[in-house]
């Protein structure tokens, strides 16, 4: 995927290989989600020339005109055209209130349906380093230190060029960009998290005030842990407590663990009883143990129950899909007896007791198990979830594969794959 800084200043050659100049800029008309590159601005010995982008072919290391420069029809930029390097590069992206957020360090272009399109604004450190030709070096240095350079790309459809307020003001100074909140809500929560991570503290709080509770909770779960705590600290308490209730109990507990103690207690007090007690229980386990990362949401079937009764129970509770991978069977004391799948339950004769169809050889772990060990068990046995028990064998919760996916996958992979899926 090329960046503007990588194709800018490329040599432009005629079909016979004769060098006619350099590419100085690319122009688009800012309409639609991802505007297509329509014109190329060339610096030639005879001055600046505008040609249609379609008259150029991208080749390795240079651009080739499809016909000789004299034979290529000169093009005219319409008044609403934007020149990427002149009008967008190095400009600030501001929020809707006009406060500054970040700067456009580079522009990301991508081939979509055979057309080169503007797909994102790089506002991160990588873009800055790329502009001075130091991205590779910096990446290697960061790699030695065991870290990755942060990416900061805002998808283009979230960004709107603002029109100049004063008509007499020169155009180059007037192009500003904005991220409207309404558009933000349409995104996948993981993408909202990415965008929010690039914002100022005030802007972040504004976003989490406006999103609906469920989206806010999903997005907050995807935000970097340190920033989660900062956002929750800055939100009004009532709102913070409402969002925490909507989050998975294990994620909420992790977040609360990062807050100062008095703030944590305040928030737990404000939460609904049921959610609060789940979270409080989770808070008693160390953060990096099975107890710290598990969720207390799971489906537990009493052993004396029949298959038909169990299906009724599921129909009534409507558990989240990821909780129905495994159904756990417990005795009257809550002790874990076995496991069965939804399929086992459905194909069994309705009057069969669940203890008869369950598999009693269930792999389980004590709450104190380190999370790395949990991750390797899940990976080794290809599990989707692992039950967590206390000293007396009672079922406390489950660790699902998405709780440990970061420990299984190579660093940074999750983040990138989410970005590419969402795009």
């Amino acid at each position, binding site marked *: 995927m090329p960046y503007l800084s990588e194709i800018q200043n490329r040599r432009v050659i005629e079909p016979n290989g004769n060098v006619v100049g350099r590419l100085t800029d690319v122009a688009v008309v800012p309409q639609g989600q991802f505007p297509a590159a329509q014109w190329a601005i060339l610096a030639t010995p005879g001055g600046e020339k505008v040609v249609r982008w379609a008259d150029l072919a991208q080749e390795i290391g240079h651009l080739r005109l499809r016909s000789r420069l004299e034979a290529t029809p000169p093009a005219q930029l319409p008044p609403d055209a934007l020149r990427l390097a002149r009008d967008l590069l190095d400009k600030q992206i501001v929020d809707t209130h006009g406060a500054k957020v970040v700067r456009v360090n580079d522009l990301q272009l991508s081939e979509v349906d055979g057309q080169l399109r503007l797909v994102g604004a790089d506002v991160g450190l990588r873009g800055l380093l790329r502009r001075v030709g130091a991205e590779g070096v910096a990446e290697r240095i960061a790699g030695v230190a065991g870290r990755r350079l942060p990416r900061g790309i805002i998808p283009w459809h979230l960004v709107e060029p603002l029109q100049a307020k004063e008509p*007499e003001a020169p155009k180059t100074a007037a192009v500003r960009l904005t991220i409207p909140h309404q558009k933000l809500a349409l995104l996948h929560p993981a993408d909202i998290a990415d965008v929010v991570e690039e914002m100022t503290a005030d802007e972040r709080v504004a976003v989490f005030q406006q999103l609906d509770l469920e989206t806010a909770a999903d997005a907050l779960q995807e935000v970097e842990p340190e920033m989660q705590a900062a956002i929750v600290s800055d939100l009004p308490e009532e709102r913070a407590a409402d969002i925490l209730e909507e989050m998975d109990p294990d994620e909420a507990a992790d977040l609360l663990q990062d807050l100062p103690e008095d703030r944590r207690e305040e928030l737990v007090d404000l939460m609904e009883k049921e959610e609060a007690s789940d979270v409080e229980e989770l808070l008693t386990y160390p953060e990096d143990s099975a107890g710290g990362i598990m969720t207390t949401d799971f489906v537990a079937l009493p052993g004396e129950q029949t298959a038909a009764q169990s299906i009724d129970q599921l129909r009534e509770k409507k558990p989240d899909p990821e909780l129905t991978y495994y159904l756990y069977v417990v005795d009257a004391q809550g002790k874990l007896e076995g496991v069965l799948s939804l399929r086992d339950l459905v194909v069994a004769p309705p009057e069969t007791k669940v203890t008869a169809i369950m598999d009693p050889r269930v792999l389980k772990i004590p709450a104190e198990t380190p999370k790395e060990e949990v991750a390797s068990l899940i990976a080794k046995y290809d599990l989707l979830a692992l039950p967590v028990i206390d000293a007396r064998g009672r079922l406390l919760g489950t660790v699902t594969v998405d709780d440990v996916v970061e420990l299984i996958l190579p660093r940074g992979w999750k983040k990138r794959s989410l970005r590419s899926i969402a795009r």
Partner: protein
Amino acid sequence: MGPGIITGFAGNDAGGVTTYTAVGAHYGFALLWLLLLSTAGLLVIQEMCARMGAVTGKGLSDLIRERFGVRWTIVAMIALLIANGSNVAAEFAGVAASLELLGVERIVSVPAAALVIWALIVFFSYRVVERALFVLVLAFVAYPISAVIVHPDWDSVVRGLAIPTLSTQQAALIAALALVGTTITPYMQFYIQASIVDKGIDREQYRFARVDVYLGAILTGLNGFFIIVAAGAVLFPAHVIVGSASDAAQALGPLAGEQAKLLFGVGLLGASLLAALVMPLSTSYAICEAFGWESGISRNFREAPVFMGLFTFLIAIGALVVLSPNVPLIPLILVSQNVNGLLLPIVLIFILLLAGDRTVMGDQANGRVSQVVGIGTALMASALSIGLVAVTVFGL
């Protein structure tokens, strides 16, 4: 008070007072012509920056980034960082020198001042303290009074203003470049433009703001003039080589007599603390603005790591330089103003290219007079810089 006059005051810092005193003490009135030229240059360049702020609504580092891209921005910001870093060291030297006059050792005063300034910025509003420090700086009103009651030879003052003379000895070039560097600091140009933008002054209001900008530049020039005249009339005939703050304080002797040290000490302390407070902050703002990093004193280290880190670094490095063993304070201050003079041409070129550019400034771009005076100022600073480097390196 408008942004112009405040900027004029800010130029009246440890570097300014020390440089003007040394110039007057060592060369009498002979370099007054250079002060006159520098003030004219300052007036024109400050007006350019203020106009850019009013027309574009953007700071200087903002414009440099948008017009010249990342690489040139790095060049400009490194120049600003070095110039302002040396200024912060000079301010801490001023703190040390003034409190040594009042009997406090620098091993106590400098770390204490650094800590207090850092804490003020991070935990409190420095605006309140800013006012209080302004009052201390008023002690320097003593200079015009001293300069008049000492009855200088006004004929030679006028001759000094009108006839350009300059020795090509290294010491003379150091003094001359320090004089230019302290009168037109790179710092002031960023500061005035940021103040105009902060106050939301637009094209309409700029007509009035311009008067304030001119007054500020004239204030800077007059302030330098009276310090040089007082020092030239009192210290020069006595062949005093300014090696310490108590030497410099003697220039106020005709007015304050025995109390001269106290008066000078109080003024220098106020001026140094004020600049040591504002300088690291505005440097961090300018640099973060250029690179799109989060800034603002209401942020914490996690939210704005570069911003908080930068001014902490500037305060720490400034204090450490002064605390390193056997650093002579007065020469340290003079060298810091030379650093400003050396880097001034770089910043001036950016300002001239921007203020003269119609795609940035529209019909408010520089006229011919502004452009010629600006180029002249840049050439003057460059010539002195090249001259000093040549004399130093080749021992001509």
